């Protein structure tokens, strides 16, 4: 199985080149704002801004694939359920046989759907334009402990590695005559012979890796200088502060009556 888990799409757009922290802060902020903004108009405006950024990054087609796979089913489900079951329903819009759809429910569903679209759009935009290890690298440059940084970076490879191991174990046990498909009792019997070697091998591998890390000097208290320089600028710093402050600002506005 190729490499670690990554949605990263090669590119040289402004977003690709932006500092990982900028992208991280903007993403989190955008998601928060999408859920704080009071009405569909505001959220949709945010969504359009995100869409523009997606196009700028050159990942529009990828995002549309995600939209189709994830957003479409969710949106339809929300509309279908909230449209007729929401307790605030009063105004009839249309009826499908015995099922009556009301405006209030549909409106709530639409708002929720657009918020989720912003959530999905922002997080996928981040993933498409940021190498997985870059965020943890940037955080370490700003003071995140190397141990935490290592945990983040190795998490990405652990899943494919474990899946590979599980596959090999399954092959080995099948070759001994263990049936792994079929009836529930049969698959239940296969559980221990498949799980135990996985757990044991993972524990042993973890121990060996820990030794290997010590042999490389991991954990020395020295100033770590990273090989990768991320381009930062005053403009990006200002943007990060603005986006970060926009969140409590928006909350305050809501409390003050923003509708």
């Amino acid at each position, binding site marked *: 199985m190729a490499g670690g888990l990554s949605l990263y799409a090669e590119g040289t757009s402004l977003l690709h080149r932006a500092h990982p922290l900028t992208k991280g802060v903007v993403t989190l902020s955008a998601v928060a704002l999408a859920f704080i903004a009071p009405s569909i108009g505001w959220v949709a405006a945010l969504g359009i801004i995100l869409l523009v950024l997606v196009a700028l990054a050159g990942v529009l087609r990828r995002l549309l694939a995600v939209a189709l796979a994830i957003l479409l089913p969710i949106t339809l489900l929300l509309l279908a359920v909230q449209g007729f079951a929401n307790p605030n329903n009063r105004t009839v819009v249309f009826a499908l046989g015995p099922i009556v759809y009301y405006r209030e429910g549909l409106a709530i569903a639409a708002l929720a759907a657009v918020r989720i679209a912003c959530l999905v759009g922002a997080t996928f935009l981040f993933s498409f334009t940021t190498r997985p290890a870059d965020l943890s690298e940037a955080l370490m440059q700003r003071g995140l402990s190397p141990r935490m940084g290592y945990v983040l970076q190795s998490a990405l490879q652990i899943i494919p590695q474990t899946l590979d191991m599980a596959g090999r*174990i399954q092959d*080995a*046990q*099948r*070759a001994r005559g263990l049936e792994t498909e079929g009836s529930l009792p049969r698959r239940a019997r296969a559980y221990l012979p498949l799980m135990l070697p996985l757990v044991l091998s993972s524990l042993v591998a973890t121990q060996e890796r820990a030794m290997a890390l010590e042999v490389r000097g991991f954990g020395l208290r020295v100033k770590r200088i990273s090989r990768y320089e991320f381009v930062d600028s005053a403009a990006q710093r200002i943007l990060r502060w603005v986006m970060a402050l926009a969140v409590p600002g928006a909350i305050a506005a809501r409390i003050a009556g923003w509708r």
Partner: protein
Amino acid sequence: MPEILLQDVRFAYPGGVEVYPEPGLSLSMGEGVTALVGENGAGKTTLTKLMIGLLRPRSGVVEVGGLDVGTVTVAAMAQTVGYSFQNPDDQLFERTVKAEVAFGPRVLKKRSEEIERGVAWALRACGLEGKEDVHPHDLGLSERKWVAIASALAGEPRVMVLDEPTLGQDYPSRQRLARLVEQLGLEGRTVLVVTHDMDFVGEACPTTVVLSHGTVMYAGPTSGAFEDRSMVKEAGLEPPHVTALGRSLGLAESVNEAGFLDAWKVQRS
């Protein structure tokens, strides 16, 4: 009637190149001990996996013990083929050596007398007597490999595949392995040993198949396997040490120590 038969087999890993070029791999093996040698990437492990159905060929026929491998599940193939993988830790999970070795025949639904018999024989043949109650993970890697081999043997299979059994093994262990495969061959079983250890090949495997870039470069008696030096070089192999010494002394070609000593005595007289 060959025990193992492959005919025009073609296979490619997903997203990868063809392992066996046109017209595909054709090979037949009978009873006795055969060594399968070649560089990493030549297609040796792929071949053994095709033999037990872990991989399905794109085209061609794979028959083992008269059975078309494509018609049975991998687990069902285990009734006929005992397979010892390179990494024993992919298999070991029981708490004692004995339980692990017994798992093999147990899962094949053998009768309890058959299980007893198979386990006792396998433990003896693999040098594990006295270690029945040890936890496999308390043993070193080379001993764990023996546990995995014993587990495959305990089912008393007709065909036995050993994937790199000599790796990391000391000399007494390699000798035990040689005696084991010889015994299996004498009993009329078919043994396939995938290995890089040419000394072992010369000592214990009367037949050799040389695979290079998915093509069979040689399939025949081990005594003649190293004669074509350019083929040997192209396949990325080195002849056994006795062969090298025999050549430097101008002796008749030999591939094992007994053969060398015979050739040496002939030259002396």
